[in-house]
């Protein structure tokens, strides 16, 4: 239904349908509503689902579970538990205080921003289910394995002293009864908050995609970000660390790089690094972690992403 609509729109404009501009516009008019509709739907449903997985409930769920399995659980819960980077610290302390092991806490903290419904929906809508699926599986793997390694390193003493001295708390959940209406409300709220914030990045991403669709020859990036360039992946990861944006903000860049022939593994490594590792987040975490633990966290996750990048490039 969207394809004819976009054709009609382009036909109304004073451009040739067969020209570069015409085909770019058709692509833009078709892709924009498609991506935005899909995102709105998913964000709405996730907003409702999110209301079941409050941080308190997730914490109660994780405390007392044995490591290993708990890492898997924590990373998976990271997808559905609502999370904003400004809540990272209270969440971190809340988990540790309730006796959730440090490594498990990290699994959650790595997965929550990196693997989320916005990132997955956008990857699916713009690059297909294979890319989205691989991102999901590999993102979770990075979170699970990194958290597990950090747990094995037993770095509890590198928490700031005041955090270690906080009284232990029981992980309890106030069972507030949430009515269906309230869940619907929270769905609408998420749509307003998330779609209201990210639509501009999505437009930019699609516009770039449309522009390339119509004009730029492919393989432009292939010479320096292609599969055969071994140093491209580490470079992408390192370049991503100081950059910080949410999943939607990085999509235009991903779109541009991919369309010009950069290798998928390299680009996804870049995306994970931008979202998962960020300088501002380190600064915030410094309030509760000593430098050594932060450095360990960054190196372990960066290595994980590096491996993901190489695996992707090798497989595809």
């Amino acid at each position: 239904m969207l394809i004819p609509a976009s054709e009609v729109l382009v036909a109304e404009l004073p451009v040739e349908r067969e020209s570069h501009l015409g085909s770019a516009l058709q692509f833009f008019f078709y892709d924009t509503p498609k991506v935005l509709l899909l995102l709105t739907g998913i964000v709405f449903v996730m907003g409702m689902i999110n209301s079941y997985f409050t941080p308190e409930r997730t914490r109660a769920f994780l405390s007392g579970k044995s490591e290993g399995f708990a890492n898997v659980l924590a990373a998976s819960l990271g997808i559905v538990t609502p999370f904003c980077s400004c809540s990272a610290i209270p969440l971190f302390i809340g988990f540790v205080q309730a006796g959730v092991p440090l490594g498990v806490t990290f699994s959650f903290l790595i997965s929550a921003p990196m693997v989320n419904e916005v990132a997955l929906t956008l990857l699916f809508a713009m690059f297909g289910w294979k890319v989205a699926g691989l991102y999901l599986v590999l993102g979770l793997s990075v979170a699970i394995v990194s958290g597990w390694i950090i747990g094995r390193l037993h770095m509890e003493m590198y928490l700031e002293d005041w955090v270690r001295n906080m009284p232990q708390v029981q992980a309890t959940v106030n069972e507030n009864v949430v009515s269906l209406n309230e869940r619907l409300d929270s769905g609408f709220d998420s749509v307003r908050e998330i779609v209201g914030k990210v639509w501009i990045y999505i437009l930019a991403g699609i516009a770039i995609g449309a522009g390339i669709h119509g004009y730029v020859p492919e393989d432009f990036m292939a010479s320096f970000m292609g599969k055969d360039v071994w140093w491209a992946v580490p470079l992408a990861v390192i370049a991503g660390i100081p950059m910080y944006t949410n999943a939607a903000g990085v999509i235009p860049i991903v779109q541009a790089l991919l369309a010009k022939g950069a290798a998928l593994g390299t680009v996804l490594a870049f995306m994970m690094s931008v979202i998962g590792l960020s300088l501002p987040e380190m600064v915030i975490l410094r309030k509760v972690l000593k430098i050594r633990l932060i450095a360990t966290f960054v190196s372990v996750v960066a290595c994980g992403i590096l491996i993901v990048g190489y695996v992707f490039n090798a497989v595809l």
Partner: protein
Amino acid sequence: MKNIKVLGTGCANCKTTVKLIEDVAKANNVEISLKKIEDIQQIMTFNVMSTPAVVVDEKVVHAGGIPSREKIESWFNA
């Protein structure tokens, strides 16, 4: 007079919450004492796991996200 504290490390949502509470109080002619707590150690003494959180008369009444207008009014009337 209601004693209200907003707990948050200074993100945009926290600022919006402070402003909203001020607005609603003014609109309803309620006198409040509003404090913003940004120090993470102090925030953690309230046992909240998501911010912004709102404390009314030393009781946590809200956590995680901007509260709705109706919710804020209900604190004033309690």
